[in-house]
């Protein structure tokens, strides 16, 4: 398994739990879950580039 695949799986399952537990209405749960997923994956990509540039 690649690091990115692990990140995507991690983000997917964690976002489901966050969405269900942090919001009350089903529509809000889905929206918050998607929001968390995007933030997880995007922040992983951004931080990866930052670490890559620092390490150069």
């Amino acid at each position: 398994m690649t690091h990115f695949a692990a990140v995507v799986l991690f983000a997917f399952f964690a976002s489901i739990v966050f969405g269900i537990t942090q919001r009350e209405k089903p529509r809000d749960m889905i929206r918050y879950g998607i929001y968390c997923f995007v933030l997880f994956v995007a922040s992983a990509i951004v931080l990866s580039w930052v670490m890559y540039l620092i390490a150069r």
Partner: protein
Amino acid sequence: MATEENKNAAPANGSKSASQQGFVYLPLIVGWLVPGGGHFLQRKWGRGALLGGSILAMFALGIAMQGKLYAGAHDVLDILGLAGDLGNGLLYFISRIAGWGADQVLVTTADYGTRFIVVAGLLNVIAAVDAHNLRTGRKS
């Protein structure tokens, strides 16, 4: 965030639901022991299935990646890891008895797996608290 109205209304609703529903900590305990179990007790089948499936999947992926199950508390990081692992409830104890999981992290994916197991436990605690909030009427 609690408004003034909510603050006034919460004790009345809470005490009413608590007296009607018996032991209010049962969903918390069941939710901790069995991922999603607290929501099943509230007849929230969909939410319970999604929570239980997600936590179980994360735990299973962690084990499949040869993640480490923390067994002892030798230093601070081990204590934190053990606390996270214990959040998995019965999954943790069954895995320890069955001898699943690695004793040492030997490959890169095992490090990911260790984090998956710890986070699955922490998410399970959040889900159990959510089930408790449903029971007390703090959340609908």
